[in-house]
């Protein structure tokens, strides 16, 4: 009898705390979906959650991992097993919202050594002019003073 209690105390079952907030689409803490300002500095603070979960390419495109890709994988089909691993693009609206949640520092183009994303920082073969939210032109490269025909011949990225 005594031995049995000793065993039970050794192998004590640890119950998971009941009040673990499962972080789903329904309960995102309120401070995370607002633009927050730091009172002490008097400036906007970037949303840390966005920085953790998303990645901004230098061309303004935000990408993110497929949400819920770890859920019930064994139940889902082969196509889903592969496509769920893709990093997905955001829509224009989402990109604009995410840009607003950032500070100018994070919107600046970044260049890192051995960057695996380096090939994707420049968009190619987009001819339409692009502007940011304040109506300024967005450029992939520094503006070179060339006439249009020459620049179209040598630079196919906008």
């Amino acid at each position, binding site marked *: 009898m005594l031995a049995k209690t000793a065993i039970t105390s050794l192998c004590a079952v640890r119950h998971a705390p009941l009040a673990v907030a499962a972080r789903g689409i329904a309960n995102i803490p309120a401070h995370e979906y607002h633009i927050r300002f730091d009172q002490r500095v008097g400036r906007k603070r970037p949303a840390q959650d966005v920085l953790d979960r998303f990645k901004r*390419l230098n061309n303004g*495109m935000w*990408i993110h991992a497929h949400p819920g890709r770890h859920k019930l994988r064994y139940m889902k089909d082969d196509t889903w097993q592969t*496509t769920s*691993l*893709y*990093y*997905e*693009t*955001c*829509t*224009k609206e989402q*990109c604009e919202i995410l840009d607003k949640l950032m500070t100018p520092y994070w919107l600046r183009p970044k260049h890192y050594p051995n960057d*695996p994303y380096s*090939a*994707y920082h420049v*968009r*190619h*073969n*987009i001819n*339409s*002019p*692009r*502007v940011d939210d304040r*109506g300024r*032109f967005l450029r992939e490269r520094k503006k070179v003073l060339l006439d249009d025909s020459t620049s179209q011949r040598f630079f*196919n990225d906008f």
Partner: protein
Amino acid sequence: MSGAQYARLVPKKYRSRTLPKVDRPWRPRVIAWAGPAAFYPNRFYEIDKWYKARIDKPEKLPKMHIIDPADHMKSLNELLAKPELEQINIGFKKQESTSKSHKSEEDRVELERKSRHMQLRIDIDSLEVQNLAVFRHFQVFDHLFGENVFFENVQNLEINFGDDAVHSGNILTASTTSSRPEVSIEGVGKPGFNTLLMVNLDGNAFEKQGELVQWLVSNIPDGEGVKSGEEVVEYLQPLPFYGTGYHRVAFVLFRHQEKIALDFNGSSLENRIQQISQFYKAHENQLTPSAIRFFQTSYDNSVKTALHSLGLKSPLYEYEYTPALKPDQREFPEKPQPFDLYLDMYRDPKEVEAEVLEKRLAEVGLEDVQEPKWVDPDYVENKKTLPPWLHSKMLERKGVGHAKYHNELK
């Protein structure tokens, strides 16, 4: 400081009433904001750029695979079958072989028993296998003399490149054919002449119609060797260019009573091209084909050296695949797309190739291009740490993964 702030430095009574307006291009900004239809004269329906005097636009129909409703129940074999016409023999009549032995019933039973027990031995060398079906299958007669034409092998013709003999359609390497073959022609025993023609049926790389004559020796007296004939066109080894697959090279033996004068202008590669059907048509009254052999060759380094010795470059033929269909690029795609695949689709292929080369040089030297035994030795670690799109690129064995280690031209 903005322009307005600068302006405020000047006392108001000396300032002009309004700021000077700088004329900036505003149209592209509006187009970027409102879309390309912003300045169309009529934005409710599409503008038509066609000149109005033109009565009808050219009808653009998509290229479609047309199925004739009358034929669609037929099988492919039935559709491809040509109407059977009677084949015309342009050569000599085949001699009836008289040495056919009649077997008795007992012999037949014995033979059958042997064959059932896998004991029946047949000496293949002693058999005379002259099956024209192989020639028909490779369309040798069709491409030499036109359709519905054939002739029998009535004269024995033996051609050897060293140890390799030419039969009907066997494959020889291009390097074995670099020097002229030993030819022995059976003598018929009657006065007459033979003419030997060697043609590459697939070797014509020029605009001109025809086949490439590799070798032409005419007026070989009956029962004598090739050396006693006149070499009209010098021997040139068959030149199956890189990427053109197997070439059929045929030896045709013609028989004629009188001496014949064949004229070929020069033996440069372009001058060797001759339509054999026309050549035969011109000399139809004198020449009668009596034997045919053919072999196949494909590209080899000897072809390159032979072309270089002729003062030519070795051409490389490649299959041009139709580029994959892709949707128009959107700046921000509506539906979420895999970002790497989506952006790769619209990248310049040259830039992608440069990236492959860079990778290749980073991982392996120019000299020792060795495919590693394992693509990713620390798979488990990488699976946890790397982003999946990067890891899948590392694991791929086709595409970039293949091109890293396999150089087609080397």
